[in-house]
């Protein structure tokens, strides 16, 4: 591989690991690590995870240089997943509370 592409992969991996550690710290320190509902932290954790997933798809799986259709499909899926997860989290209690 070229030095530039090798460096890029390393940067992506570092970013993925750093985001993971940030998510971990935010949950273990936020609200004293309590297991209580925390919408702000939950939203950030979910969005950060989707950013990580996008990084894996675009950089490790090389969709960045792949067919535009796959890139579009990826973003459609990411947005759909975000809507589904966040939608259930916020609207859920209103619709389903027992």
């Amino acid at each position, binding site marked *: 591989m070229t030095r530039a592409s090798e460096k890029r992969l390393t940067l992506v991996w570092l970013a993925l690991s750093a985001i*993971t550690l940030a998510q971990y710290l935010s949950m273990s320190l936020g609200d004293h690590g309590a297991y209580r*509902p925390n919408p702000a932290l939950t939203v950030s954790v979910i969005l950060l995870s989707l950013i990580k997933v996008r990084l894996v798809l675009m950089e490790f799986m090389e969709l960045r240089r792949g067919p535009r259709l796959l890139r579009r499909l990826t973003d459609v899926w990411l947005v759909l997943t975000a809507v589904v997860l966040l939608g259930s989290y916020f609207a859920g209690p209103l619709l389903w509370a027992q």
Partner: protein
Amino acid sequence: MNELAIPAAQAHAKEENSSGIWFFVFFEAFLFTSYFAVYMVQRARNPEAFLQAQAQLSLGVGVVNTLILLLSSWTMARCVQAARTGAVRKAMRQALLTIAFALAFLVSKVSEWATEIGRGYSFTSNEFFSFYYFLTAIHFIHLLIGFVFLGLVVHQLRRPSPSQSQIETSATYWHMVDFLWLNIFALLYLIR
């Protein structure tokens, strides 16, 4: 391989990845989103029970497992790039590292399950744990299948003329195992 050949090699990257594996990857991606939806809806129905059960998971083990899979994706991507430029020995090293990380995840996951079952948390303990075992077990099965793909990479790299297409198809599958876990980790271990 000289520097001029590399752009040509990268141009070929688009064609090397067979479309079949991408159909599968997106199918699995949407499928898992539907599983997550069911989990989130059920969680919204009974947040306190889910939070209490979730507290029994080891956040630290979850993070370590996530970091291990991210490492494996990194080495897998390095393997593909090395193979593409003909650096077969380097590619082989990266492939073997990927297998090592995959094994580390496997051992970690099985021992985590053993610990939880030992503490009395099984599939039928409560609703959260049903989802936990279901999602992590389905992911684990994908991981096991991943070993076959990783084996194919090693097999190709041993041949005089490794099939870049086969290597990239395997890599695509492996990265899917990684990104599926990234969401599972967030939803089971992190969210409140």
